[in-house]
């Protein structure tokens, strides 16, 4: 999908050399249409043999029973699953009627860390990046005090749910009762939302969406904000787009937590094998090939995508790359999103609730209660399914 689909063609000659009898045909999908196309392909019975899948889509395709469990194959092929970052691998484990199963192998990873201006932070009297929420807020206040109205502490684009989601993950579960009810009105999420919205209310973060900031890199270079919560692709973008004289003035750091280094989101893409494929063995060989640390290193060199296996990080291109180190350390502290097909929707709705609190059209209490009510209504079918399964089990 997207850029990866173009690049994978460059990895294939090595695979072809090893398995000349297997012919690989790559079909490219744009990310924007991929989700709909996959579901339609499932309904029409025309899924491919294997596929790259955003790891938040795994619950959906597992609910459809479209994926092949990979535990046995990974064991036989000698793929060391403990070489993968645990939080990332966990996003590929789904509970089934027969216990937890692995339904995908992580291909590349995505998480959120801090990007920040080292010079502005130093001028404000902080030589080290913040580790806890309190230190972070202190640093932002100092930056704001020094710079005045044209300086903000942090840019958290209002249309991006990921920063708030990371803060919420630091506070505990977001769903209750086997992921059949929302837990947004619980103290954990309310603390995260309270912290997030206080940054706006205190004037430390501008209440803007990404569309209203014409160019994030220009504004970062100009010093409109000192911190920015973003993902791995911005390492490359910062190098390309920041002016030369600013290249010495930025760095990355793991995300601060409530009391010390915090967890962040476990995103990325996985490789999956479809149950309906008539060529599972051949397809698995390709997955195994793409999961080798050496292939992952070549893939990183071609795309900048970060590998999910610790051993792949020993390549000089990664081990010597300073901005990537914050990701390496953050990846040891990532937590999976709730594994239910409805999560993507809840994720968007959560941000809608946060926006209302930021704009003060609702208080935290009202917003979280309303969010829980919405989530409970959305998950009604899951409760019904669970009750049905228990009833069937009891009848036996």
């Amino acid at each position, binding site marked *: 999908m997207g850029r990866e689909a173009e690049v994978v063609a460059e990895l294939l000659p090595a695979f072809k050399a090893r398995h000349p009898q297997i012919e690989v045909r790559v079909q490219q999908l744009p990310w924007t249409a991929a989700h*709909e196309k996959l579901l339609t392909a499932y309904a029409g019975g025309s899924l491919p043999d294997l596929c790259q899948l955003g790891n938040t889509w795994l619950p*959906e395709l597992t*609910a*459809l029973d479209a994926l092949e469990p990979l535990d046995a194959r990974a064991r036989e092929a000698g793929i060391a699953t403990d070489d993968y970052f645990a939080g990332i691998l966990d996003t590929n484990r789904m509970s089934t009627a027969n216990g937890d199963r692995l339904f995908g192998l992580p291909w590349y990873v995505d998480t959120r860390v801090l990007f920040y201006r080292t010079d502005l932070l130093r001028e404000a009297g902080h030589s080290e990046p913040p580790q806890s929420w309190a230190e972070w807020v202190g640093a932002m206040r100092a930056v704001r005090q020094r710079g005045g109205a044209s300086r903000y502490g942090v840019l958290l684009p209002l249309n991006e749910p990921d920063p708030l989601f990371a803060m919420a993950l630091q506070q505990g579960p977001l769903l209750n009762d086997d992921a059949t009810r929302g837990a947004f009105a619980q103290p954990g999420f309310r603390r995260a939302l309270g912290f997030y919205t206080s940054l706006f209310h205190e004037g430390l973060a501008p209440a803007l*969406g990404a*569309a209203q900031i014409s160019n994030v890199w220009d504004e970062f270079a100009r010093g409109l904000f000192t911190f920015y919560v973003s993902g791995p692709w911005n390492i490359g973008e910062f190098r390309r787009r920041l002016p030369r004289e600013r290249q010495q003035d930025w760095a990355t750091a793991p995300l601060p937590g409530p009391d010390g280094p915090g967890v962040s989101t476990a995103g990325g893409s996985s490789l999956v094998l479809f149950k309906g494929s008539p060529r599972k063995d051949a397809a698995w060989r390709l997955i195994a090939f793409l999961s080798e640390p050496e292939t992952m290193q070549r893939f990183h060199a071609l795309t900048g995508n970060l590998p999910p296996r610790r051993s792949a990080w020993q390549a000089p291109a990664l081990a010597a790359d300073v901005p990537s180190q914050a990701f390496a350390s953050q990846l040891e502290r990532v937590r999976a999103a709730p594994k239910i*097909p409805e999560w993507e929707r809840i994720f968007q709705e959560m941000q809608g609730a946060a926006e209302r609190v930021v704009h003060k059209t609702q208080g935290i209490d009202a917003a979280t209660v309303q969010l829980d009510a919405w989530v409970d209504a959305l998950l009604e*079918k899951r409760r019904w399914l669970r009750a049905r399964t228990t009833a069937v089990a009891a009848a036996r």
Partner: protein
Amino acid sequence: MRRVVVIGWALAAPALVVILVFFAVPVVMGLSLSLTDFDLYALADLSTLRFVGLDNYARLLQTPLFWQALGNTLYFVAIGVPVSIGLSLGAALLLNARVAKWQPFFRTALFAPVVTTVVAVAVIWRYLLHTRYGLINQTLGSIGIDPIDWLGDPHWSMPSIILFAAWKNFGYNMIILLAALQAVPREIYESARVDGAGPMRQFTDLTFPLLTPTLVMVGIMTLAGYFQLFAEPYVMTQGGPLRSTVSVLYFMYEEGFRWWNLGYASAVAFMLFFIIFVVSAGLLRFDRDPAGSPA
């Protein structure tokens, strides 16, 4: 007599079968789908499908985004239909004028947007509407108007979509209105001139009444088409910014094919059908009893 009836049915049968298979059956299936909670879980295992009666419709009426989508759609229809038909009528009158030269050329040129692909011209329009490099903002800039974020500002996104849709569609109605205008005998205008009617009177008392049936037909077709706004926001804005270009059909598409709530999405489809039906019926009354007709 009986033989005639049989032959009649036999001749109509192929068409009737096609209508039955490709229209009646899908409509009935859609209607029954809208009474169930067909979703992702039902797609995986049909035994989890539940009959929910009118719950989908009740839930729909309580969904804020549906009302917002309906509001957006009504905005689009209320402004877009008059603008579009006004453009068509204006262009048709110009083309029909006696002094018009190169009439075939202009007719083809003005009709051209209709036969182009929405997606291809939407890409071009996105260039035109680009905040910094777009031709429209550059033109406005040269007369001292600040750049407008056409597709990124929630206040301007819908007007931009209307502008695009009107440009794309006016040629079709123009051809129909032109045909109607050309059917009016020139002698009537001559006698009107003899009676001393100026161009304005000629339009209000001759052209407009004679065009009314065509205008009502064009109006209903445009209205029904504009209520089904989808491709323009899908290609140009994906429903944003701040959901300001989510139309009812776009809402249905998201529910159905993004979240796979097919039961709920079918309910949206029937609700939209109902709305279009009521509005079109209202317009048809216009035709039978044209308002403002001399008593």
